[in-house]
């Protein structure tokens, strides 16, 4: 899921200072699990804005904020409240925020959150990054552990000289990805695979902006 954290309130206020009336949009998926776009988070934001002398004309937690069409349909019932607002504040990830940009061509849209990474929830509201969506997955060659994400240098062929007692040179809080890969390969009796050189990555596979028409691709694959 997409991990978000709330922006510093001073920074948010700086961004929205020229507006008075806002409509708030959250998201019932990732941002709710992160506690940044849940109904409670929206209530709390409403209180905060009121305290700053602003008005909240209405609010909605759509099912999936990044599903542009669905969110647009859900927003229909809030048309009046939306019309009354001078700006939209979105409390989801950057993708959900840009759904609103598309839905409201004539209104300024502001993010209330910072989008951090694609994360795994390891415990309640504890998130770790495991995949950077690089466009071509290599973990079939690296014991199922992603070195592009788990190694701060994204190295593909083994640990750097900075590894210290199994930890990363960047921080002792990060276990060295390549020591983890080594340990797992050993456990899987697959050390020989670690001796194979992984070629330079084709970064064009992850070129921005990404676009995929899954249905069309499926038809093509079927031939």
């Amino acid at each position, binding site marked *: 899921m997409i991990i978000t954290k709330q922006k510093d309130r001073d920074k948010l206020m700086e961004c929205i200072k020229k507006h008075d009336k806002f409509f708030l949009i959250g998201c019932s998926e990732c941002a709710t699990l992160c506690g940044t776009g849940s109904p409670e988070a929206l209530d709390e934001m409403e209180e905060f804005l009121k305290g700053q002398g602003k008005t909240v004309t209405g609010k909605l937690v759509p099912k999936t904020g990044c599903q542009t069409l669905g969110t647009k349909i859900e927003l229909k019932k809030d048309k009046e409240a939306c019309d009354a607002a001078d700006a939209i504040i979105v409390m989801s990830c950057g993708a959900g925020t840009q759904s609103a940009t598309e839905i409201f061509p004539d209104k300024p849209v502001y993010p209330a959150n910072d989008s951090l990474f694609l994360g795994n929830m390891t415990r309640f509201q504890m998130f770790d990054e495991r995949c950077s969506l690089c466009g071509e997955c290599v973990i079939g060659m690296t014991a199922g552990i992603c070195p592009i994400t788990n190694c701060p240098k994204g190295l593909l062929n083994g640990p750097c000289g900075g*590894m210290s007692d199994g930890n990363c*040179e960047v921080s002792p809080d990060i276990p060295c990805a390549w020591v983890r890969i080594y340990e797992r390969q050993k456990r899987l009796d697959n050390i020989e695979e670690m*001796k194979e050189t992984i070629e330079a990555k084709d970064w064009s596979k992850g070129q921005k902006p990404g676009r995929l028409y899954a249905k069309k691709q499926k038809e093509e694959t079927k031939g």
Partner: protein
Amino acid sequence: MTFKEALESGKFVVTAEIGPPKGTDISETIHHMELLKGKVDAVNVTDNQSAVMRVNSLSICKIALDHGLEPILQMTCRDRNRIALQSDLLGANVLGIHNVLCMTGDHVSAGDHKGAKPVYDIESVQLLKIVDALNNGRDMMGNELKGATNFFQGAVVTPEANPVEPQLIKFEKKVKAGARFFQTQAIYDIEKFKEFMGFARRFPVKVLAGFVVLKSAGMANFLNKFVPGIKVPQELIDELKAAGKEKALDTGLNITARHIRQLKEEKICDGVHIMAIGMEDKVPIIMERAGLL
């Protein structure tokens, strides 16, 4: 005799290190070059070491060449993508630089521009393969070059990494990728280094043991605590302590000289790489005490 010829002839070689200055005043750098000239077989020129922005390695390599020293261009993958790396390699070769040391490079978080975007488009093993391709007249994509490079390429290894196995696997990969020589992280325990050499000797590569002079017991403790892959044994720390403050540096120089002499006499490796880190004037003293001058 070039660095490569010296290694191939079986001579016990010595390389030193030059750290480019931060700024355009290169007078001290040139002074260090004068000190090392005629004594060492080659000098490594570091590449924005510790991720601190400085004069680039390539320019100082060229200056070293002009001052009669044979440079080893250190190249890290931290700051340049594959296009820039290959282009700099071609540029280095046309300037007459023929040795290159392929490294990953310290992370930007260690340096003085912590908000920089780390590149690592490729890494050390892949960079070695690129050098090999350029030497064979092709770029990494297989495009033909008008004129091949003639690099003598090397890499680094940390014999005292913990755990060491992944490091040794990477060493093997580097050999396969075309590394001809290795310079090691600083070593202090000759017996343990012998064990590493037992492994390294199975491959057709030359190995230069790395040295960093211990200036005091405090420095030794600092290295043990904060520098990955460095282990100073307790008896050396005790030796430095016993020497007292006044004599500590001199004792450190003696330790280095003693170790180098042993490596040479027992033919444990093919040479040494002395990283003076600001004490370039001490390199000739060490060499003299080690019986190399």
